[in-house]
């Protein structure tokens, strides 16, 4: 089957017992046993069945199965958030004393997790640029277990060559985990490119409507099983069945949504590139983007995220933020609505200009999560807001 068909049908079957065309939401914390022996067999894992929603739930399992199919993974495990999924992957692949390598360009939440939380578990992190073989080789230690990258990466839309990095990892018997949130399996399937693990913030394009928080990790069956046993079962971090169901619902339109997100983003990137108040545009779909050739190779299209630097720096960014009418000022991304974020005045407002530049963010940098609205309305909105600068 083609991915568009799998996005609609894959992994989800009619409820056999009741005939429900759309599977029900199993909003239950616990499940009954036929008798004591039945319960004992379930707990020992001698029989398949449900015990308690933290340990497994029919609605959540459907999502895991469907995502595994879409990402060409053997199995998946769903979490309460993308961060819970990332944390579980790290914890499942490392023991205390182990080491991981993380791309310098990474979502801020992941960065903080590595900086502040992992040391408490005795796991150390080196931030490096994984596209650079010498940098990676220098960073690898005997106890390195995992390399974690994003592509396109948040927020500068850097493209990582997944196949190349996967090969490098495997030469050193290190697992590669790719955060595929920006691309989604519709545009890019890292496991087919050689990655071992894929993580998602399902809050973004997978759910697609900004109405939930969720995450998922996918990979080989034995890794997912050990992640369940070592992390999820005892720590929790499980998703609510209703959120899993909402993601299943959102997923059905993933292909059509992504098509529109990509088309709109490309048009906006081109518009911004020709705008006199814009210094630089970050979009992998533009020919002059440094990762354009790699993106063309490993992605079906270039995604819905666009970044750009305003010539007027921090002040220009503030004016733009306060002048847009259609774009919504908000963090998060992947919603049907266009969301606009200016790190210097919003998420990173405590940073001075020099601090910002040191962490790789231009004070005039703006991130757009391009929605599925009419493109003319979006460009018109940006045009009028830019004219205020």
């Amino acid at each position, binding site marked *: 089957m083609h991915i568009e068909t799998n996005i609609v049908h894959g992994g989800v079957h009619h409820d056999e*017992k009741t*005939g*429900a065309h759309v599977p*029900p*939401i*199993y909003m239950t914390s616990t499940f009954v046993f036929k008798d004591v022996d039945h319960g004992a067999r379930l707990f020992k894992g001698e029989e398949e069945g449900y015990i308690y929603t933290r340990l497994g739930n*029919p609605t959540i399992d459907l999502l895991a199965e469907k995502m595994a199919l879409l990402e060409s993974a053997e199995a998946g495990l769903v979490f309460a958030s993308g961060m819970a999924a990332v944390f579980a992957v790290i914890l499942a692949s490392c023991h205390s004393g182990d080491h991981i390598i993380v791309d310098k360009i990474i979502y801020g939440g992941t960065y903080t997790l590595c900086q502040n939380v992992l040391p408490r578990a005795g796991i150390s992190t080196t931030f490096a640029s994984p596209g650079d073989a010498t940098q990676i080789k220098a960073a690898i230690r005997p106890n390195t277990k995992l390399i974690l990258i994003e592509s396109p990466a948040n927020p500068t839309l850097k493209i990582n060559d997944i196949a190349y990095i996967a090969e490098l990892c495997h030469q050193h018997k290190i697992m590669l985990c790719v955060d595929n949130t920006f691309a989604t399996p519709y545009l890019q399937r890292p496991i087919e490119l050689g990655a071992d693990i894929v993580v998602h913030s399902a809050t973004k394009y997978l759910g697609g409507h900004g109405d939930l928080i969720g995450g998922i990790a996918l990979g080989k069956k034995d890794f997912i099983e050990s992640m369940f046993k070592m992390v999820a079962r005892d720590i929790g971090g499980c998703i609510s069945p*209703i959120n899993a169901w909402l993601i299943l619902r959102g997923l059905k339109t993933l292909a059509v949504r992504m098509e529109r997100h990509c088309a709109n983003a490309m048009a906006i990137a081109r518009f911004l590139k020709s705008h006199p108040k814009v210094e630089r545009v970050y979009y992998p779909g533009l020919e002059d983007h440094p990762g354009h050739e790699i993106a063309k190779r490993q992605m079906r299209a270039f995604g819905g995220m666009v970044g750009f630097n305003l010539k007027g720096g921090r002040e220009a960014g503030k004016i733009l933020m306060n002048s847009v009418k259609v774009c919504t000022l908000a963090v998060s991304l992947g919603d049907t609505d266009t969301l606009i974020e200016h790190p210097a005045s919003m998420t990173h407002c405590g940073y001075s200009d020099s601090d910002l530049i040191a962490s790789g963010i231009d004070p005039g940098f703006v991130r757009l999560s391009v929605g599925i609205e009419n493109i003319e309305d979006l460009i018109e909105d940006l045009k009028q807001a830019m004219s205020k600068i």
Partner: protein
Amino acid sequence: MKKGVNKYIKKAREMLAERERYIKQEVKKMRFDTIAVHGLYSVTEALEKNQGAIIEPIFMSASQAFHDSDEMEAALSYAIPAWTYSRIHNPSISYFEEVLALLEGYGFDGSTGCCATSSGMSAIASATEPFLVKLKKKAREEINFVSTCQVYGGTFQLFNVRRMEERGIECRWVTNPNDIDQWSKNIDKNTRFLYGELPSNPGLVFFDLKKVIDLAHEHGVPFIADSTIATPALLRPITYGADIVVQSVTKTLTASGFGIAGAVISRKNIVSNIPNDAMREDFALYLKQLPNRDIGWCLSPMQAILSLNDIRTLRTRIDILSQNTMKVAKFLEGHPKVAQVNYLGLESHPLYEVASKYLWLVDAEYDERYQMPVNRYGHLLSFVVKGGINSARKMADNLKRIWRATDLGRIKSVITIPAISTHQQMGACARCMACIPSGLVRLCVGGEHPDDIIADLDHALRKVGGK
């Protein structure tokens, strides 16, 4: 009928017979709380149909798939109990309906059915509509029904404007429902049903239910009760012979306030002068399969399960809320700035006697704390602040904890001034008829500690001018 179709019908009959047996021999013997908690959802059903889920799943699916065309034919012709399409029916809605049917029929020998609706108003509209059909071919046919005039403002609007003004169906208002002659005088051969809301919102009017039901049946017409304020935890009109009960499930039944829902509950073989056997035999099922299927005011399966979850704790909740309200009512009764308090539980209330005849906390005699029948009067009261509407507004504006909102039944205390909100659309004249003075304040007491609610009221009343 085709052999294949018959196979499904045979299977369905066995299933229905087993269900009937289960209700009669097991469920009907259970106490109110047990029914509220479980309904008909059994361990067997959980294991056989729902992966062992102890909570009824939310079937968020528009339609049902069938094994083959035979099953489809049997289902669509209503020859087997299927759910087909969620506008008509749905497994989650079914769990919800079964519980409400059993609770309203608690203490009643016969069986009851329920049809869930998208709101309390659609419950009222759908419970009354089938009786207002034209029976003659004449262009104009005199049709009337008789109702207490102390009804919720929305109901008044439905009866007065939609039915009377727009369709020429006469609603004959009874101003004093305790005057049985007034009811009697209004009934004639064109009367289709009698309708009453008790206790009424917001005036807390109550009447001798049994007498009015008997009168309706003497004339061959059904009695329809809006029992929203009482809930089956305090009053089950069907046990007194009422034919149909309507509930705004949005209110006290579901104190969480998670959404809008309604229900029509009926007993089997209702009294009616409409020549329609299916409708008489099982009104709720008829409603569900035919008129409501065509009209489409169906409930969302999500809402059904959210509501069901609230109903599980109904009896204990009503007990506590009633006790809190009694304490608040006594405080208000003694307050110098309050001219009048309407709460059926106050001995000073003119309808205290008749209300006490009917409003009993279900199963109090089996409750360790009481071990005998106990009266409870619900959590709605109303009062008049001295100084009229301006004083009422001043008091309401100075509340800090109690919410100003047009809502009742919540676990949070809510206050309303009906003349400028819930009952504004009916106009001053109709408000006068329904005993709603402009300075009347409606208070629905929640689950907070009553001392905090009293303190809030006391503080706000102090801000009101005058002696």
